[in-house]
């Protein structure tokens, strides 16, 4: 494999020698940056505030971040579930690294969803938290996947860690619809129609802003996953590398022990012949 020719291409394409960047990830990074600028322009400047019935005015712009973030975290946890299933099937460390990376990114996006949802709640209901079904099930999912990351940290043996977190990765995702369904149903009993009326009438440039936000969230997720996966893969390779070293060390220790045992065993053997 040729080492990357670092000096080729414009300064932008010069990659840090040790980093997890590559030509592909750098290009994707540039696309994401350009997309962000465009998105900010459309979301904050170009699109008009919402003047419909119960106008939310400028506040509709919060939705352009909140909704894409929510979708991105579901995507991330879906990828974790698929990668976990693939690990159980194929048993290659790549799938395990992918599951772990996607879960961590999912947790970050969930945090962002909760944060923007809370700000959104404060603007409309005056409280920092509102028992909106989507927000509530997102909070439950947040704790569950923090538990997933905690489980990974709690297991030392790489194979055992991969297998147990793969199973949890699948079960946790199987839980998302159940939690979602029961919370929605629970709130629909108590909350009359307040939620329905709040979805602002989104059309024209506003719809484009939301659409652009979703695309940007996907690209951002992909870029983050690319880097986070390589980081995870490299650190697992490093763990394994320590293994070969430990194997050599163990064998050296073995030779030393054998010599020492041979030295002590010699007289004992003679005693045995005598008996």
């Amino acid at each position, binding site marked *: 494999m040729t080492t990357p020719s670092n000096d080729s291409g414009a300064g932008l394409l010069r990659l840090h020698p040790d980093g997890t960047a590559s030509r592909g990830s750098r290009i994707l990074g540039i696309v994401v940056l350009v997309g962000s600028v465009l998105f900010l322009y459309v979301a904050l400047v170009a699109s008009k505030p919402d003047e419909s019935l119960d106008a939310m005015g400028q506040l509709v712009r919060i939705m352009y971040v909140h909704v894409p973030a929510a979708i991105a975290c579901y995507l991330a946890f879906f990828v974790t579930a698929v990668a976990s299933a693939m690990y159980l099937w194929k048993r290659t460390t790549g799938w395990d690294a992918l599951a772990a990376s996607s879960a961590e990114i999912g947790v970050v996006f969930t945090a962002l969803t909760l944060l923007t949802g809370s700000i959104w709640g404060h603007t409309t209901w005056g409280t920092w938290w509102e028992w909106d079904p989507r927000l509530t099930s997102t909070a439950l999912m947040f704790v569950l996947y923090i538990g997933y990351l905690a489980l990974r940290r709690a297991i030392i*043996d790489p194979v055992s860690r991969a297998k147990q977190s793969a199973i949890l990765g699948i079960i946790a995702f199987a839980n998302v619809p159940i939690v979602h369904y029961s919370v929605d149903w629970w709130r629909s009993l108590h909350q009359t129609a307040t939620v329905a009326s709040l979805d602002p009438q989104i059309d024209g440039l506003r719809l484009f802003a939301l659409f652009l936000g979703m695309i940007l969230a996907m690209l951002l997720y992909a870029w983050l996953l690319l880097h986070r996966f390589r980081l995870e893969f490299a650190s697992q390779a490093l763990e394994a590398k320590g293994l070969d070293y*430990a194997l050599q060390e163990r064998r050296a220790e073995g030779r030393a022990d054998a010599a020492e*045992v041979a030295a002590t065993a010699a007289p004992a053997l003679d005693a045995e012949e005598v008996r």
Partner: protein
Amino acid sequence: MDAVVRFRAAVCLLGRFPALAGVDLDVAPGEIVLLQGPNGAGKTTLLRACAGLVPVTEGEATVLGVDLVADRRPVRPLVGVLGHRTGLYDDLSVAENVRFWSRAGRSRVADADAALARLGLDGRLADVPVAMLSAGQRRRTALAILVARRPRLWLLDEPHAALDQDGRDLVDRLMTDAVGAGATVLFASHELDRARAVAHRTVTVAGGTVSGLLDGAVAAPAAEPAGEVPVA
């Protein structure tokens, strides 16, 4: 009959520590083989590997015809393991423990009761909760479960530990009786003089490596480490 245990350059990992870094071992049917070596040499891991409790990640490992590298679980019902930890429920009595583990291991209740009597646990001790037993009595209970199981391969980790004098004599008798009845015994011990008296052959375990082949058996080419300079 081919070897009961056949290891060639076998490697076992405990987490990231290579507890076994290259084992060549043969145990023929009806043999009593003693594993000797310093603490941490890998004796316990080797016994657990034979029992299918630890994955063999490299090399060949076959016990009682079961290829441990492919799937190590089928060997488990065929072996009897006695380790430092006795695997008993503290809240259950001696008899309840032996009966539960015997029925769990598919052996007959008659064998369980016979084993209790054999280990001298059928009297007052039978109904004592295991939590209140001494280490020696706990080990006798674990031995009773093993005897009731009538395994084809006995895997004993320091069987004499925590036993009194006649307890140790009893262990030696159990081993010779079992072999007499067609089983095979692989055990680790630090009481070398007593252990050598009963063992047919002694194998040294050092630094996770073993060379205990029967004469005439061919050792696998020693797996050369990758020779890569470890990155600081």
